[in-house]
């Protein structure tokens, strides 16, 4: 059952987008490569089930999403036997707060302004991806499932076999970490020339 040239071409055209998405989720180039290969293979083998209600892209990405979830599920199974899920993130951010639990003056969040222009700036996305990759692996995994793979928190807890409170703590840390990184590397540097560049997207 060889694919038509049109389908092969369409699949090849989508390959880089699939790879980019998988790499972001899995943080591992070879795992991402495998996931994409399996996705394309599954797509070719199941051509008949694609009825064209959604676009080819949507269909492929939903296959990829399931492959990614399988990998995540497998990884968490490999680690939960040895150690509790959460402890690769030692940072509790308590240094940002004083003894009464209020923000230190210098760490107090400031306004990030209107996000629209920011989100149209290529440089921002480079920094954003750096900040994502700076998250500890397990923290990142939970965050990705929530914000990129569309799971709600109950589903994440069930998939990764962690308690809800554990889930919330991890998401809280992920968001704390991300915003701190972005504050330091982007929003806090707002006077530098790179921010006044014309949107390049």
């Amino acid at each position, binding site marked *: 059952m060889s694919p038509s040239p049109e389908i092969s071409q369409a699949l090849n055209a989508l390959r880089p987008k699939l790879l980019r998405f998988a790499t*972001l989720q899995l943080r591992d180039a070879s795992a991402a490569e495998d996931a994409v290969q399996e996705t394309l293979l599954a797509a070719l083998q199941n051509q008949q089930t694609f009825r064209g209600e959604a676009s080819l892209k949507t269909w492929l990405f939903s296959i990829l999403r399931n492959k990614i979830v399988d990998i995540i599920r497998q990884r968490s199974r490999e680690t939960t036997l040895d150690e509790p899920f959460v402890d690769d993130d030692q940072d509790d951010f308590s240094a940002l707060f004083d003894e009464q*639990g209020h923000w230190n003056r210098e760490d*107090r969040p400031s306004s990030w302004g209107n996000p629209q222009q920011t989100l149209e700036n290529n440089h921002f*996305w480079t920094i954003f991806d750096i900040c994502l990759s700076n998250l500890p692996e397990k923290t990142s995994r939970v965050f990705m499932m929530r*914000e990129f793979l569309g799971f709600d928190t109950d589903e994440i807890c069930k998939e990764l076999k962690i308690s809800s409170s554990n889930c*919330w703590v991890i*998401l*809280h840390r992920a968001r704390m970490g991300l915003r701190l990184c972005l504050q330091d590397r982007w929003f806090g540097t707002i006077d530098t020339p790179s921010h006044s560049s014309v949107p390049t997207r």
Partner: protein
Amino acid sequence: MTFMISCTQATQLVSRALDAQAAFSERLTLGLHLLACQGCRNYRRQLRILRLAARAHPARPDNEAS
């Protein structure tokens, strides 16, 4: 009854509220804190921007990637 919470607690609640995981009484308590605390109001706004960014990320299939 409600009581004044710290920013440490408020930031945790902001995160949970973002996922609809905060009870009504917790949201009330949080709301009170936010009335008085610009830092945490900005924090909440920042978390919303993080979510916007995740949705607008170029690697996502429906967004234009380079």
